[in-house]
């Protein structure tokens, strides 16, 4: 036995020496080709190992990673780190990991230009959630909602539609979202079979039907209020259709949109914006919860069976602008909305506003038209810096393909978003760091144990969310709750809003869609005015 071990040591040593460069290395002129591209990116020190694969052609590979006095050497095309090595590298004395790739071509070893992986002291939230979904238009046999610990590679499915649906009765799950990055305030929608909006608040589960006689649909895109027990939702009548000839494969359009407020404690919804000539969508709270941002496009067409085909024909004229609407969360009173960004004037469409928790930034998608950025190659990320008063395309992180579903980390230092930059079709999760001046670092892909994961996996990953804690409810608990409980209907509350002169008006909606408004009076309203 000892002899075998000795022989093995000798053989391995010889093999190692045979594949190690000796003397000075020649400089190889070709550029570094690694996947995912982690060259010159900035990563948080607490992120999982950025495993990568070298795409430069060679007969043998050797990669030396150094950070201060820490050095790790790897051989082979696939560079995968154990947690010990990775912790040493990320906790080294320097602010960057220098990576030198050496290639053996024929008998000659050479070195590529070294690159850095910069280390940021701004940590990133430990967990993210996302929906793993097959790329398709109509079918959804397998939809998994996952939570990933991004400080390592552990992924947990916290709900899957396969646990509830049967052959004939499909279940779609979507729009998972949490309040204040907490697992004790989360929600997602279950559509069709056993449908309802599932809320998990402090471990208690609730399934709600937010479709009332006065609202056009159940809640769709959510935004959890940062300080009070409210969730703003859009109402959507969504349709999708396939492009017959385009690199954009799919067009998703809402025939109608409204925005509603769900009062968690009262289990009641009330309207926020319901103008029939406006398509209001994507509500997003400001950090203090006193302003609701949303997007809206003006669209007038008769309601009826023809409206759907009409709106598809008019799709290129749908330009969504960004609006804000003041809100007093204590009195649940709204102020009049106002225009924040006129995208239509620039012949573009702005969607998906998301505000940083520190209140400094807002990021949106900007595209040529329409409401569904993920399916538009032209969709880019757009950043508002309220501190500097600037608004610009985030060109340093945009790609030639669609960018969408961005979200801020809880310390407002990182953004994560879904991008199709790798192949134009499959959405992948990328991150970027934002510095004090509002500049983004080079985007990097969510690290995977198998660095070729993004290349080989045929699912898409969308609606990413940061979370600071693990989800305590198991997938089975969710599944059993959803299967065994009917959705509780939400009640309807009247809308309380002040007009531009400060008069408080409450509006009730009737089943037939008409409204009745009553003015309460300016004096009375002023006490309940929102602060703006």
């Amino acid at each position, binding site marked *: 036995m000892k002899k075998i071990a000795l022989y093995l040591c000798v053989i391995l040593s010889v093999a190692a020496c045979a594949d190690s460069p000796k003397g000075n290395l020649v400089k190889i002129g070709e550029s570094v080709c690694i996947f995912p591209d982690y060259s010159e990116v900035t990563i948080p020190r607490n992120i999982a190992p950025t495993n990568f694969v070298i795409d430069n052609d060679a007969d043998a590979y050797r990669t030396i990673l150094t950070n201060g006095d820490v050095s790790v050497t790897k051989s082979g095309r696939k560079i995968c780190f154990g947690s010990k090595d990775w912790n040493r590298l990320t906790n080294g004395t320097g602010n960057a990991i220098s990576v030198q790739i050496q290639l053996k071509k024929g008998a000659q070893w050479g070195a590529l230009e070294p690159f850095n992986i910069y280390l940021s002291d701004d940590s990133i939230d430990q967990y993210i959630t996302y929906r793993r979904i097959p790329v398709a238009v109509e079918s959804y046999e397998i939809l998994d909602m996952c939570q990933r610990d991004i400080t390592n590679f552990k992924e947990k499915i916290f*709900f899957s539609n396969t646990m509830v649906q049967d052959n004939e009765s499909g279940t779609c799950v979507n729009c998972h979202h949490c309040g204040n990055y907490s697992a004790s305030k989360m929600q997602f929608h279950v559509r069709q079979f056993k449908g309802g909006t599932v809320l998990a608040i402090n471990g208690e589960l609730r399934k709600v039907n937010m479709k009332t006689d006065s609202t056009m649909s159940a809640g769709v895109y959510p935004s959890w209020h940062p300080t009070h027990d409210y969730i703003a939702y859009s109402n959507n009548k969504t349709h999708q259709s396939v492009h017959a000839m385009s690199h954009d494969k799919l067009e998703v359009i809402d025939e109608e949109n409204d925005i509603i407020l769900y009062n968690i404690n009262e289990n009641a919804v009330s309207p926020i914006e319901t103008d029939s000539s406006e398509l209001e969508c994507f509500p997003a709270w400001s950090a203090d919860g006193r302003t609701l941002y949303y997007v809206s496009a003006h669209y007038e067409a008769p309601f009826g069976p023809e409206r759907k085909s009409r709106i598809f024909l008019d799709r290129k004229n749908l330009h969504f602008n960004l609006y804000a609407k003041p809100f007093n969360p204590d009195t649940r009173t709204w102020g009049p909305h106002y225009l924040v960004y006129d995208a239509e004037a620039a012949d573009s469409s702005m969607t998906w506003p998301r505000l940083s928790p520190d209140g400094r930034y807002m990021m949106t998608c900007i595209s040529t038209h329409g409401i569904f950025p993920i399916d538009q190659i032209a969709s880019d990320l757009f950043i508002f810096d309220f501190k500097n008063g600037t608004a610009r395309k985030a060109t340093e992180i945009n790609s030639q393909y669609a960018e969408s579903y961005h979200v801020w980390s809880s310390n407002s230092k990182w953004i994560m978003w879904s991008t199709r930059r790798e*192949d134009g079709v499959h959405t992948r999760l990328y991150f970027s760091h934002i510095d004090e001046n509002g500049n983004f670092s080079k985007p990097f892909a969510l690290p995977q144990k198998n660095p070729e994961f993004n290349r080989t996996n045929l699912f898409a990953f969308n609606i990413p969310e940061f979370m600071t804690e693990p989800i305590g409810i198991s997938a089975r608990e969710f599944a059993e709750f959803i299967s065994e409980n009917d959705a509780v209907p939400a009640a309807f509350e009247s809308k309380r809003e002040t007009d531009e002169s400060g008069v408080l008006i409450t509006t009730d909606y009737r089943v037939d869609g008409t409204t009745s408004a009553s003015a309460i009076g300016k004096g009375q309203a002023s006490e309940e005015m929102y602060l703006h």
Partner: protein
Amino acid sequence: MYHSKPIHFKTAIPALVIALALWIVLTFFQGHFLYKNGDMSLFLFDWDFFKEAFSIPGGFLGWVGSFFSQFLLIPWIGALLWTLLLLLAWWKTVQIFKIPDKLSALAALPVGLLIIANMSLGYSIYYLQCHDYFFAPVIGYLLMIGIMDATWRLKGTAAKIAFIFASAFGGYCLAGVFALAGVIAAGIGTAAAPDSKDFKGHIWERYAVSAAAAVFCAAVPFVLYRLFTSFSIADSLLMGLPNFTILEWAQSVRLPYWLLFGLTAAMAIARPYFANAESDGRKMALFNPAITLAAIIATSVFWFKDDNFKAEIKMSLAAERNDWQKVIDIFETATAYNPDKEEKKYKDMAHELANANDEETYSQIIRIYNGKISRPTRLMVILRDLALLKQGKALDKAFAMQDGGKKQESKFPIVNSIEAGQLVFFNYGAVNIGYHWCLENQVLLGWSYSSLRAMTSYAVIMNESEFAAKFLDKLDKTLFFRKWSREQRVLANDVQAMSSAQPYKDILPYMCFENRMAEYDDGDCEIFLVNHFFKNRSNWSTPEFDRAALLWAMRYKDSVMFWKALAQYFTTNNPEHLPKHVQEAALLFCSIENEDLGITFDKEVLDGFTHFQEYVQKYGVNSNTIYRLWRNFGDTYYYYYFVTNVYSFKFN
């Protein structure tokens, strides 16, 4: 000591002969079906693919089944492997259940059920959600009787219970309900072995083993259901069995498996009595031949037989290989008819229709004869027209060949977009629509060699090389499509090379249309294509596109469309001589609209049309005259226009 029963060569001869016959039938008469099954499966030599198998109970069985299924792409090898596995199943059944030679045909019953389960599939393969369907059940059955065998071989109650526990939990994870069925049958067999030499335990020990089997089998799904997130508790007893997107279909297709489990349990009970039957030779002399014959007849009855199903598959496969002449040849062979027999059918129909007292009876007769009179399915016509277009012969020949819309021999209607949408749309240049159908199918049914190749082709022709790489990387890990993948990778990165390579070269001319949002077409290729050729017109066009547009205008029998398409056809094709069907259509529409557009018609066409008008005026178009009308004018556009009624939809 437990002994397996030895099998005498004499006993094995009938089984070997039947196996050989089965292999011949499969290879030479069902090769297309085997290939289709193989093409709808997927096995990757890839660690992730292997790991994925463990995400669902029974997944490992599927993985093994998929491994074998890839050999169906070479039908004679696939058939050989399947036949050998069936033979092994027969042999092990005889051995494990100790079936005496005189009763050895009993072992053919589970094998017969396994054959029926595969060969009765027919159109349901288009809704089959498993990659492994062909081989997994026979491997599952072998595992099932293997568990029984091992349980019975083990000595001691504790060892048996421990093995049953491991088989129930481990087996369920690997092979789903096949393992549970094996455990249950092992328990039943143990309890029902009063004079077993294998297990000399007390009666309470035997019942303890049986009770353990029952308890573990009941507990396993409920316990493991909590570990997996890939199925609902309602589906826990279906893991490892084939699944279909249509519930009723799944239930009927799974029936052979329930019978198989029941039969195996029954044989486990009967096992101790088989020994007595051995000595009673004379009474059992006819048993084997009778059972064998019954099994063959049952298998034959349930074996799916439909010429159009066969033709559709063969035509699709030929079209995928760009062998358009073969597509036409298969169509012609499949729709060949004996004129005398055909006339008799028409006469019988006319006779029955004349005696029909009410509309319901009348419709029923039409339905019955629609199934009897040789007619192609719409998909066959679509593929044939496509082949004729590719050969530039469509406007001369499309209406001269058989037409119609025979209903598929299927329990549930199957839209032709599911069957061949990805192929048809791609070849008409509607690449995104093919992409859409391919994606929907893969979500419902899972990825397959076929869908990976289709997705690659869509990406290559759209110059989406990074997207194509996604699928090429997968195909690189297959056994039979590596070479294809290498070739396509070159084309994906070289637009020039792609545009001069088949099939892209012939498809690119059809991609000269404006982008438009596809309208809901109910999964019918023809609805989409009629709309496509008239709504997506761009400022420029190609001769190929305009020939297709003209054909679809004629197919839809719309004169407005026809005149527009004809004008466009003149512009791009600049024909010296109008094709026969175009002349017939122009003559017909001129006649209907009382117009003279100055088109020069061939004498033959003019005479034919005059003859047709006279004939119709004299005899009319009714059930008595239809056959003669078809015989005399069945190769003309005006016959198609007046008689052939294939479209129930309205053009939007």
